[in-house]
């Protein structure tokens, strides 16, 4: 199939934000037809299926039987293969670790035609390279994962307002027994209010309840990308004030279906179009605990100084559980995710100034959300690259890889 210098890259549903799922000068292997379940053990909670199934398709099957995915990212439209190849994390990282922690084994198809079963005990080094390996070690055709039991599709959810990063840290500590925690940060808060936000925590309801998966199709859609971004400092400022005000009014523990809690953006098809035809940049970094709070403060101040607006600013504390991948992004510390409408040079300069803060704090950027990081910052954040390279498939490459390894 691959001739000469042609390279290949698996392509699931293209839910990465940057070029890590794109192979612009080569072949992309669609995994859409790898959509069959091989075995679902509903007694033990073990699912063995092909890698092109989306997390949504998996939830449709396992939720009615009282099971849930051990880790879910912010979209249910990612594939199983993509979840492994990016070693995705969720709001329960502080307890559950990354997605790769729950993969029992996977089948890797190499360009040589070899099929290799990889697990933490078999072909362990190749397994470690493939988890978080950005699709560069070969095509993941199937995987076996552990599920977690649930008694109901409902979550108990509680929102708490915090006024600074110290308060966030305190809430994060006192919420250790909540399975899911995540915070929204008001990037438009001024001076004394810098670092204010809303801390959400949730857990699966313990009482038996209905087990109905969420609606499959989004009710709303953004039909076209307008020429200018609808996300700008005025709209974000108004939204943030309203959102913070609304959040500060509810203190009760509420019950909610899992779908809007885990996948709020999936409710609107093509939501990315609100950023206009020039799109947007995501910026997600992780900084170690030591000095991490100061680094986050610095980043928030830099946003404030720049006058740019980040619509979605999400802060989360990663736990101690080690990610199994050589290039896994999750590691102990604080992770901040931001997005900015693409305003060309101005936006790129702002993000470069963030890079310095992240580098100085000993942090890393998330490849799945990146479209611009330099080879230097990639190398600094992922010291195991030298162990990873020998495990790569010689015929596999991506636009991201060529960019950061030049």
């Amino acid at each position, binding site marked *: 199939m691959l001739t000469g210098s042609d390279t290949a890259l698996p392509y699931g549903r293209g839910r990465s934000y940057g070029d890590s799922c794109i192979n612009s000068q080569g072949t992309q292997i669609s995994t859409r037809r790898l959509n*069959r379940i091989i075995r679902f053990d509903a007694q033990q909670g073990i699912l063995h299926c092909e890698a092109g199934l989306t997390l949504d398709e998996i939830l449709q099957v396992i939720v009615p039987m009282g099971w849930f995915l051990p880790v879910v990212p912010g979209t249910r439209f990612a594939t199983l293969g993509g979840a492994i190849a990016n070693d995705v994390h969720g709001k329960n990282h502080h307890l559950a670790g990354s997605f790769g922690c729950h993969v029992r084994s996977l089948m890797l198809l190499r360009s040589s035609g070899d099929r290799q079963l990889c697990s933490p005990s078999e072909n362990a080094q190749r397994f470690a390279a493939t988890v978080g390996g950005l699709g560069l070690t070969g095509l993941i055709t199937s995987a076996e994962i552990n599920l977690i039991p649930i008694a109901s599709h409902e979550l108990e959810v509680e929102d708490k307002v915090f006024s600074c990063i110290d308060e966030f840290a305190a809430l994060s500590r006192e919420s250790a027994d909540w399975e899911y925690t995540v915070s929204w940060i008001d990037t438009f808060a001024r001076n004394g209010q810098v670092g204010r936000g809303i801390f959400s925590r949730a857990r699966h309801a313990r009482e038996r309840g209905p087990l109905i998966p969420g609606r499959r199709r989004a009710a709303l859609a953004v039909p076209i990308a307008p020429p200018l971004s609808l996300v700008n400092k005025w709209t974000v400022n108004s939204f943030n004030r309203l959102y913070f005000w609304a959040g500060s009014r509810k203190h009760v523990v509420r019950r909610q279906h899992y779908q809007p809690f885990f996948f709020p953006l999936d409710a609107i098809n093509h939501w990315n179009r609100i950023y206009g035809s020039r799109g947007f940049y995501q910026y997600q970094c992780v900084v170690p605990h030591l000095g991490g709070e100061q680094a986050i403060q610095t980043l928030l101040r830099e946003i404030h100084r720049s006058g740019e607006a980040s619509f979605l600013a999400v802060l989360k504390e990663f736990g101690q559980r080690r990610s199994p991948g050589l290039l896994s992004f999750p590691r102990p510390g604080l992770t901040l995710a931001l997005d900015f409408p693409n305003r060309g040079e101005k936006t790129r300069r702002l993000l470069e100034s963030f890079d310095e803060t992240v580098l100085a704090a000993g942090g890393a950027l998330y490849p799945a959300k990146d479209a611009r990081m330099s080879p230097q910052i990639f190398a600094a954040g992922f010291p195991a690259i030298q162990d990873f390279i020998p495990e790569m498939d010689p015929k596999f490459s991506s636009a991201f890889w060529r960019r950061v390894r030049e």
Partner: protein
Amino acid sequence: MKSGPGILVFGANSAICHELLKLYARQGARYYLVGRNPQKLQAIADDLEARGGTVSGSTSYDFNEYQQHESCVLRARESLGLIDLAIVAHGSLPDQVECETSGTAVKTCMDDNFTSTAIIVQACARQLALQRRGTLAVVSSVAGDRGRKGNYFYGAAKAGIDALLQGLQGRFSGSGVKIVNIKPGMIITPMTSGMKHGPIWATAEAIAPAIYRAIAKGRKVCYVPGYWRLIMFIIRCLPTGVLARLPI
């Protein structure tokens, strides 16, 4: 647990069919699967069982071995008890240019898309007539609505299916037997993998729910996605001279 509908499937490996079959699995459907490739058939069977269905039997053979269809339907009837739904979804997309020069290619096209289908439909219809109830759903194509210079061999085979099903709809009119003619437009499946995909293309996954609803209602003709009803209406209305000039 209440046992779900008994479903007999010819061409279970087809992408459209697999997506459709998934939708019945959660009701605890019982399947009898027939396909050409036994490995793929097993993978589909495992998938449907994992989703809550039961595969009560399966057979793989070449659909051009026409003597096998009758006995296959009988085995399915025995295995399922009652055939609530029979789906005929196999087919192949011929190379139009090759058909224009090779009689063998034309024969393969007609065997795969008309002759085998007609014999399977006959065998199924006979069984449903004995049961006096049940639904027969056949996947034909929008290509049969009007002969076009781009694919008239495939179109002719599918037009033949249209006439066959219209006749059966007349025969079973007012009875408990329903005949559903499913007409997919351009769908992204392995069968069309060599073609260039544009904005009017849909995925098998996206059209399956509409087919499911058409079968539940026993609708006579079901265009999927629905906008193909309009597209084909326009194409049928075009004067011959205009159609000849279009690059389709």
